[in-house]
């Protein structure tokens, strides 16, 4: 009998979370945003998401099996998640070949070249997106108009997003922004990337992830608070420099970025202090790019820049050691 007993060091108990339960938890949290997207963009949202997930999984499998010669880890769900997040950052009427290139860059370049899950320095989906933004600026910045394009895919009628009106430049007609109600932005009835439009759905997803302890509040809250404070300050000082901060908070990829992209485990800091610094950094960079940069949206760049700083943040901002807290 005693020969059958297993010996191992403690602990002999294990929590329930696994890599795949966490990844599928994030996917669950993305469901509301996806449903809103299906409602507004219809068939295009479905096709783009399926194409993106399909190619991400395929490339991960091919690279793991034939180039790295390791066991492909498709079941952990991380390639699926990268695919969904990449799709959420694309216009829903984008050509599937462009999506394929994005998936190749995201999985092939940003993830697998670094050694696969856990090793990458930059958020794969965002690397994919930014690569496409630079390579296909035209296709990446024309967004289909919501609702009326439900049954159109590549032939969708395109329109501007609120972000286009938000530059503090005289040639831009800010009055166009008046046509967009913040409540539409909350519900997602505006032009924009596939998954970024419905602020409400993204917030629901974020609350779910915090409740399930998939993420902590630090990163999303610090990003959103920084953007809110920074844009409010500029707006109060000079309203021609900056539109109503509400548009900044609800528009563009801010919420998708703050809740789902910046919180990517692999590329964000470890300690709570580090997460706050990282979040503040993303918030500041986003506003700076949005107000003074040449791109209409700065979220992706801000997150990637802070990804690069993450190892330094991890080195500098350690958790508080027990016994070093000031107590009575």
């Amino acid at each position, binding site marked *: 009998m005693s020969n059958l*007993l*297993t*010996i191992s060091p403690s602990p*002999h108990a294990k*929590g329930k979370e*696994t890599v795949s339960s966490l990844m599928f938890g994030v996917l669950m949290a993305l469901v509301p945003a996806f449903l809103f997207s299906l409602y507004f963009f219809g068939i295009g949202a479905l096709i783009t998401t399926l194409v993106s997930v399909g190619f991400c999984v395929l490339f991960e499998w091919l690279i793991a099996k034939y180039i790295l010669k390791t066991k492909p880890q498709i079941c952990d769900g991380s390639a699926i998640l990268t695919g969904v997040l990449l799709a959420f950052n694309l216009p829903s009427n984008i050509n599937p070949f462009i999506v394929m290139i994005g998936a190749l860059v995201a999985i092939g370049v940003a993830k697998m070249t670094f050694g696969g899950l*856990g090793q990458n320095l930059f958020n794969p989906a965002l690397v994919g997106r930014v690569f496409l933004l630079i390579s296909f600026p035209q296709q990446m910045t024309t967004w289909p108009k919501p609702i009326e394009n439900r049954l159109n895919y590549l032939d969708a009628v395109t329109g501007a997003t609120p972000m286009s009106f938000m530059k503090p430049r005289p040639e831009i007609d800010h009055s166009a922004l008046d046509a967009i109600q913040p409540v539409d932005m909350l519900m997602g009835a505006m032009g924009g990337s596939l998954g970024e439009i419905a602020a409400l759905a993204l917030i629901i997803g974020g609350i779910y992830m915090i409740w399930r302890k998939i993420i902590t509040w630090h990163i999303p809250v610090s990003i959103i608070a920084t953007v809110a404070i920074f844009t409010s300050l500029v707006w109060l000082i000079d309203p021609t420099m900056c539109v109503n901060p509400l548009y900044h908070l609800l528009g563009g990829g801010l919420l998708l970025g703050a809740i789902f992209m910046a919180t990517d*485990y692999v590329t964000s800091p*470890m300690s709570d202090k580090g997460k706050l610094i990282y979040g503040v950094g993303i918030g500041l960079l986003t506003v700076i790019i949005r107000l003074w940069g040449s791109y209409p949206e700065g979220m992706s760049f801000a997150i990637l820049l802070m990804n690069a700083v993450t190892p330094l943040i991890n080195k500098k901002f350690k*958790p508080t050691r027990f016994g070093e807290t000031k107590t009575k």
Partner: protein
Amino acid sequence: MGGVHPADKKITAAKPITPLAVPQTVAIPCAMHIGAPAEIIVQKGDKVKVGQLIAKATGFVSANIHSSVSGTVKNIGPVADASGYTKQAVFITVEGDEWDESIDRSPDIKRNIDDLKPEDIINKVHEAGIVGMGGATFPTRVKLMVPEGKKADAVLINAVECEPYLTADHRVMLEKGEELMIGTQLLMKAVKCDRAYIGIEQNKPDAIEYLTKLSANYPGITVVPLKLKYPQGSEKHLIKAILGREVPPPPHLPIDVGAVVDNAGTAVAVYEAVMKNKPLFERVVTVTGDSVKNPGNFLVRIGTPISALIEAVGGMPEDTEKLISGGPMMGKAINSLEIPVAKGTSGILMLPKSLAHRGEPAACIRCGKCVDACPMGLEPYLLSKLAKLKRFDDLEANHITDCISCGCCMFACPSNRPILDYMNFGKGKVMAIIRSRKK
């Protein structure tokens, strides 16, 4: 800060303490405590009685060891204990159950502690070989000898029992509440302070209610209900939970923040030693497991082989694939039924196949769950990586020696990484390096 919430599975909470029949032979190891092993003072062929001294403490951090049975010393030789190492032990063949005459076996509770001086109490504790019975087995006398220039201002009784499954302390509180209270008074007197707190987690409402009622008659003793969290039973975390003070990093000790912490079972042992003249030769052990037939709490003589305990609960279930001495978070997996119950054996746990094995380790996804879970404010992901690379200077700089091996990091890790294995390896090496530096 930190901590995890394992399922508490206190399936034996309602099972009264049952005395286990005295076995036919016992093997009493002479190193059942932290510090120097005791020196064996009996020889093969000697007759011994229950409670008779058989091994003497050597040095300051050490503890006396007494016979738990009456009979003849059959042999003196090595026995494997829960650590997996062999220790010198006294093997005794049991003949009858004859107790040393000086032990007061009456059921009366003795309450008068007024004539006792602190030194009397400390000496008695030392003579009786009392060590921390929560599992750490640190000699209690050493804790009670408050160093020059330091002052104890509160005694904390650790009745948290935050390890899943274990209920030994819970039953002791319910069945030996008066003794616990008097033992606590003795501890207060020994360290010359006038207040004590009994910290109990809220999953033991009956114990909280009962002891709160009793404490009305014992001025200075307060029962503190605590929120559930592992590892709240860690000395430092209990002090923080009750007094709001953090013990500074090593080499600082609880006494540096004015606290003396003793386990509930230890407090009862102190009462028995001082008031009843009874040395520490038996203890309460929880024998349990999800598929065990009749799990329960037993009063067991030290040195009893674990096989006797397993028999008492209806044998080892068919599906058992792991046998643990202690709880599932910090207990030790054992592979022999001949291992004797020692002073620090709080439980025997039989885990079925589904809980016995670790998951396949996957890549670290840098989720930071180990950092969030670490109750010491360390970075387990980093420390395990540094230990793997044998970068001992970096390990020391990142405070590996603060680690209390509670296992929260591995419990929380979604990738099943053997974080604590690496950290324990690194900690051992770094401690050795620090020791060699002092020489």
